């Protein structure tokens, strides 16, 4: 099942300006495409358009069959919502089996609940569940109908951090072998789950590629910043001469983990402004001229000291 999407849709929220989203992409059988973008970038609208909830120009096709004229119920998709959208008037088991009477072949509800670790919830009502439990039920409901394509709209973002981390891991098993489009604003989730990433901003796809390509080689300032790279203006001579031979670039994009610190030597000299412990490493904030550069290191220098900073050419990008 290859999903081909080439759509343009306009949406007007109550009392807001009309907003247009447009995208053309393909998702190959069994692959997970992650649409990564800030809130308001149109990624949810895009996903809902693919599902058939909004009228649009262009087409949505599966293995060459045009789905555009089909109503959502005839597209054989699954959809997982940010706020779960479980039917409050049905038990967990009834929610999961909701698509039963509309599909000839379905999954095994008990097995799905067991795989997602929620077998004991079958007779409960959604209002009695935690967020993580609700989202597992919503996943089971979508998988139950054996969808051709699974669409997921920020399924983790309403959850607290430990629950997010756990479900993100389990999501890898769920998405294994499933053709999926996954929308998120969280770059960690995108990097973990994606076979391909589509970075979206202001209703347009601004970069696409494998996770490593997008994270390590951003093609614009926006993508660099949104994926967590430093994006340093090359407006001082020492910085420019250190990294940019041609002299045409305006910015240096470099990921914090690719910034090398050493004592005294290096491309430029920086002052250590701040050292903050994150989970596995230290985030060091450096001042180079007037600019801030973040670096990850396991061996942090003392705040206030001077360090040499070098940017490996292979791990940094000129924009």
């Amino acid at each position, binding site marked *: 099942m290859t999903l081909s999407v080439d759509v343009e849709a306009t949406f007007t929220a109550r009392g807001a300006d009309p907003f247009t989203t447009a995208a053309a992409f393909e998702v190959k059988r069994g692959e997970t495409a992650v649409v990564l973008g800030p809130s308001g970038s149109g990624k949810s609208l895009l996903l*809902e358009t693919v*599902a*058939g*909830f909004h009228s649009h120009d262009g087409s949505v096709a599966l293995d060459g069959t045009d789905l555009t004229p089909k*109503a*959502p*119920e005839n*597209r054989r*998709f*699954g*959809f997982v*919502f940010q*706020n779960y*959208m*479980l*039917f*409050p*008037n049905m038990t967990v088991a009834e929610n999961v089996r*909701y*698509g039963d*009477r*509309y*599909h000839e072949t379905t999954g095994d509800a008990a097995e799905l609940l067991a795989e997602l670790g929620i077998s004991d919830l079958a007779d409960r009502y959604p209002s009695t569940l935690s967020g993580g439990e609700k989202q597992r039920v919503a996943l089971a*409901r*979508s998988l139950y*109908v054996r969808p051709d394509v699974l*669409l997921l709209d920020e399924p983790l973002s309403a959850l607290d951090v430990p629950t997010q981390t756990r479900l993100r891991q389990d999501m890898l098993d769920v998405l294994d072998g499933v053709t999926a489009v996954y929308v998120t604003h969280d770059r960690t989730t995108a990097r973990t789950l994606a076979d391909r990433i589509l970075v979206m901003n202001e209703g347009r796809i601004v970069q696409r590629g494998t996770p490593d390509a997008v994270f390590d080689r951003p093609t614009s300032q926006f993508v660099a910043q949104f994926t967590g790279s430093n994006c340093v203006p090359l407006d001082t001579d020492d910085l420019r001469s250190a990294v940019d031979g041609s002299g045409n670039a305006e910015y240096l994009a470099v990921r914090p983990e690719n910034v090398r610190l050493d004592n005294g030597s290096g491309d430029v000299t920086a002052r250590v402004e701040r050292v903050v412990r994150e989970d596995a490493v230290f985030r060091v904030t450096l001042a180079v001229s007037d600019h801030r550069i973040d670096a990850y290191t396991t061996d942090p220098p003392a705040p206030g000291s001077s360090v040499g900073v070098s940017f490996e050419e292979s791990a940094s990008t000129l924009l």
Partner: protein
Amino acid sequence: NEGVFGVTIAVLGSVLLLAVGLPLAMFVARQRPSLILERALDPDVHRMLYLSVYAPLLAALVSVIFGVPLALALSRGFPGRTLVASLVDLPLVVPHSAAGIIVLFGFGRGGAFPQLTVLGTVTGMVLAMVFVSAPYAVNSAREAFEAVDDRLEYASRIHGASRFETFRRVTGPLAVRGIVTGGVLAWARSVSEFGAVAIVAYSVRFFYPPAGREVTSQHAPVFIRKAYLTGGLDQSGAVTFLLLLVSTAVFLIIR
């Protein structure tokens, strides 16, 4: 300063509470039980109560049966929706006796259906009641439909249910409280209505099962005014008290 604000609020608020509560309290205190009992045993009062429960029930049923589809359409939106919504709300601000005049122009002699007799009939009474009470049924159902998250309907459809199935299994069940509330409100509004009913159907002939034949009576608010004009405050007070017992029962159902 803090205390002053709290006291000011309490005092001002109490004035309105008195304007509503005092007459109710005085009304109850000044009733004579013997007179109430006498009226409670009066067959004329029974006929009036029968008519005053039965006709509003018909009106509420009509309002719900035809109002729920309209509410569903309004909650989803369609071209001209604002106009239709305004039309539905209009009876709320039409003065009550004007509503009666309007119903007579529409369905009375020279109106839309020449075969129809509305003056002094249950049909006319119900039409007048529907005119003034339908907005309650429609608006309550509409709010209930609008309170159902669009994405719950999306979730239903993407997993295979058609529009109708989605309504039957998700939207309808989730809105059923609002629909019932709307029906009860429409009923209560119909029970209350004096102006429109007094114009269209002051006295009504209707089939009264306990007697096994047609009888003539009035809708409760009309009956009360008649009792006041012919029997004075005490007579009408006793009937009002009986009717308030019924109203309070309605009221408890609503809450």
